[in-house]
């Protein structure tokens, strides 16, 4: 993300370069001469500073080929010729200006390149590097190849290449190969590779930004060794003497190859208005008279690549006679980039601003079908579902996740479940999130008592973006299930009616269980707390009474499960107090009774008495004493259930129940977490049952 941001800024800045870049003209003199190994025996002012050049150049780039043809030149980096020619060059620079060398020189065997810059301008150059590539013997030796100097000037990078490419008329493919080699292998290190290091230059690869390709201006000069094809010597010389140079140019291999895009792609060459610079009898202007009698050719050339480069002149210098080549020179006026820092800064700020805008636009965005989810009439153990639709309305894929609030470990309340809690949504797509509320024995008590409410705020977090708060709310219909015995015995009317405030008389029912006399008073006062509490919760009575009436003979009673839907109806019936007859099968009623006991917030035998009860379960007298310590209503329920169980056992012939099973069932139902004590618990239950 960050690096792509950087790349984008770079690209934008490059594209808008002209908005903040000015061009400053610099005059660049380039010269090339194949000196054929001759000593520096004559002045070279005619070449480097001819009389017509009134204005001194800012930069000199001077290339020699065949500077030293001695065997020593291959072996030693020092060369006497080098020093001699260097002195000659210094003497010949334009007298109207003072020059400093950019690099002393770079030389590979016979190829030497010297670059000078006008005094005062040296402060504007930086990152000076040089490199050499040998393409001669074995493809690496320095008898052929190229040397180059590269440097930054203001905000441009300049590169000068001096090369001596392979020769021969019949083999004009060779120079191309050499050209490509130099191009690909010319990588600039921070040091000059000495000529006797026979190591291919690509070992000195530092970074691709250092290759020739990345210079804003490249000037390529040298003895490129392209000849004239398809023309014989006499015809050639005739055209020259007739001054029909443009006609002769059609036979030039380099011109042909460039037009066929085989070589020097993107390079330009100025119009040649000078006669071929090769081959002369040394010391004269006479065409080669040796045995070989070479056809004249424009071997020595200067080409360039890059924008804002204008060629002022392109010429040869006939006055320099000591070699079989004539020197060539060209003066360029080239626009060097100078960045206006203030303008650049402005453009940069613009680019950044645009990018900031995009970054914000590319933040993940979603729309949700609702910010508030309301569940209606939630009942105990009855699942309610709602759907939240999350739509990706942004421009990037979104990963969302419900995250916990700081004080919580879970992202939602225990009565709520959310599926999925995290997902990835592609651009334009939607995701359905299913929310369901289910109140069970863990969450029921506090909701029944009003201590807790169906209220939650979900934090829907978008990865790398904003958070949305989804409010979940609902009304819970209190139930007798999961209410405490103490509450229930003080509730004289059905639970659902309590909140409405209306009073409904609860008819005291004559107990069918004659061992217990239940005196359920009729509620007559609007303030139930002033009335004496019921002996046992009426709901337990109704469930037991129903079983007593309709289930005593039922085979598999308590062994066969009831139906969940019927249990919900039974719950409603108990909570609403109507209809009088409990719905569903006796199995459902039996399970409802077990459930009722199981979800009591405080079990029939309260937690605090539990250990003691286990302790005394083998001793009938002590057990009776402990029983007396239970709260009245709990004791009543206990006695009532036990009485009921005993009644059930009387019918064991038909319902096939035994004391052990019932003991397990009833006493573990609401103490299921204490299974370790199961054996002793059911032992106790049998004992207690026997006691009655």
């Amino acid at each position, binding site marked *: 993300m960050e690096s792509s941001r*950087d790349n984008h800024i770079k690209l934008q800045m*490059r594209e808008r370069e002209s908005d903040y870049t000015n061009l400053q003209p610099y005059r660049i003199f380039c010269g090339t001469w194949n000196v054929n190994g001759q000593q520096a025996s004559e002045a070279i002012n005619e070449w480097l500073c001819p009389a017509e050049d009134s204005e001194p150049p800012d930069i000199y780039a001077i290339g020699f080929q065949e500077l030293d043809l001695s065997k020593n030149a291959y072996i030693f980096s020092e060369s006497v010729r080098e020093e001699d020619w260097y002195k000659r060059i210094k003497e010949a620079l334009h007298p109207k200006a003072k020059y400093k060398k950019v690099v002393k020189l770079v030389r590979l065997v016979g190829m030497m390149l010297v670059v000078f810059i006008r005094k005062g301008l040296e402060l504007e150059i*930086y*990152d000076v590097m040089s490199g050499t590539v040998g393409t001669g013997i074995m493809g690496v030796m320095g008898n052929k190849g190229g040397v180059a100097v590269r440097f930054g000037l203001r905000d441009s990078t300049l590169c000068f290449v001096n090369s001596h490419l392979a020769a021969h008329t019949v083999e004009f493919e060779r120079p191309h190969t050499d050209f490509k080699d130099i191009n690909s292998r010319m990588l600039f290190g921070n040091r000059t590779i000495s000529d006797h290091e026979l190591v291919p230059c690509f070992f000195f690869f530092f970074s691709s930004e250092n290759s020739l390709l990345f210079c804003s201006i490249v000037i390529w000069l040298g003895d490129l060794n392209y000849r004239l094809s398809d023309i014989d010597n006499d015809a050639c010389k005739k055209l020259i003497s007739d001054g029909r140079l443009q006609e002769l140019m059609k036979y030039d291999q380099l011109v042909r190859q460039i037009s066929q895009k085989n070589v020097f792609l993107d390079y330009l060459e100025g119009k040649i208005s000078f006669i071929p610079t090769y081959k002369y009898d040394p010391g004269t202007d006479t065409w080669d008279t040796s045995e070989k009698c070479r056809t004249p050719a424009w071997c020595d050339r200067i080409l360039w690549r890059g924008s804002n480069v204008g060629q002022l002149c392109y010429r040869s210098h006939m006055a320099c006679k000591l070699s079989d080549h004539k020197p060539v020179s060209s003066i360029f006026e080239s626009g060097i980039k100078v960045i206006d820092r203030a303008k650049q800064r402005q453009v*940069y700020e613009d680019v950044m601003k645009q990018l*900031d805008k995009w970054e914000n636009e590319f*933040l993940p965005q979603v729309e949700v079908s609702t910010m508030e989810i309301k569940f209606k009439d939630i009942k105990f153990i009855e699942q309610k579902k709602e759907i939240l639709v999350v739509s990706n309305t942004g421009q990037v894929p979104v990963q969302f996740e419900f995250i916990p609030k700081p004080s919580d470990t879970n992202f939602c309340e225990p009565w709520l479940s959310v599926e999925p809690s995290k997902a990835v949504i592609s651009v334009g797509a939607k995701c359905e999130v299913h929310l369901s509320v289910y109140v069970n024995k863990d969450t029921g008590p506090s909701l029944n008592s009003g201590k807790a409410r169906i209220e939650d*705020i979900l934090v829907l977090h978008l990865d790398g973006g904003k958070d949305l708060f989804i*409010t979940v709310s609902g009304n819970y219909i209190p139930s007798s299930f999961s209410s405490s015995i103490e509450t229930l015995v003080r509730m004289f009317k059905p639970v659902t009616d309590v909140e409405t405030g209306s009073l409904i008389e609860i008819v005291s029912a004559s107990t069918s269980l004659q061992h217990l006399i239940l005196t359920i008073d009729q509620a007559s006062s609007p303030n139930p707390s002033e009335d004496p509490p019921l002996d046992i919760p009426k709901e337990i009575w109704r469930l037991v009474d129903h079983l007593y009436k309709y289930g005593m003979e039922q085979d598999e009673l308590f062994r066969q499960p009831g139906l969940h839907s019927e249990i919900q109806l039974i719950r409603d019936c108990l909570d609403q107090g109507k209809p009088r007859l409990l719905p569903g099968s006796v199995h459902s009623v039996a399970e409802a009774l077990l459930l009722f006991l199981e979800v009591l917030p405080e079990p029939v035998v309260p937690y605090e008495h539990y250990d003691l009860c286990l302790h005394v379960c083998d001793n009938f007298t002590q057990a009776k004493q402990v029983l007396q310590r239970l709260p009245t209503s709990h004791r009543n329920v206990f006695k009532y259930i036990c009485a009921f169980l005993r009644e059930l056992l009387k019918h064991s012939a038909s319902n096939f129940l035994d004391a052990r099973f019932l003991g397990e069932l009833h006493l573990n139902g609401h103490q299921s977490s204490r299974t370790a004590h199961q054996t002793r618990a059911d032992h106790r239950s049998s004992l207690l049952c026997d006691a009655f």
Partner: protein
Amino acid sequence: MAAGPYNYSYIFKYIIIGDMGVGKSCLLHQFTEKKFMADCPHTIGVEFGTRIIEVAGQKIKLQIWDTAGQERFRAVTRSYYRGAAGALMVYDITTFIVRSTYNHLSSWLTDARNLTNPNTVIFLIGNKSDLEAQRDVTYEEAKQFADENGLMFLECSAKTGENVEEAFLDTAKKIYQNIQDGSLDLNAAESGVQHKPTTPRNTLSNDQPQSKDGCAC
């Protein structure tokens, strides 16, 4: 290519807090998009915005969390205060209808103080300064409140953009100053600042950005 360093060297986390409807989201929008968002819906959640700014020649990325102002979300939004380097506490200059709003500001301030680190820069913003005719809070009394509590203070308009840039930048300058003078420990947990050292460049071109518009504090 010699341009300034492209990457940012710091990330500052900001939170925007304050009552519902005072214009927190509009301030964020004005700062990140330079546009006024009319008919901005109530934020139900926490919006997120980012912008890169420059202080003393340093590029700083601001990550801004704009919190829901509704009271019922207060408990949840408190969790976003942690690790904030800057807290922009916004009120509406036109709705000081009940003078007890001072208490309201105090309660936001208490939250900000309790839930952030001691060096978190708290900036009081009186928004809607364009509605001069409906002004109900004088500059002076708000300034006094800010001074008494050691807060930075500006009146802004998310609508016209007046002082919006300044409020966000001045906060950053103050944070940067705290870093420079060592009062904000970058290594401390939840400083709200991440330092991202940029790799040094090896070109000797004029790479350093001119810092004339730098830290004025």
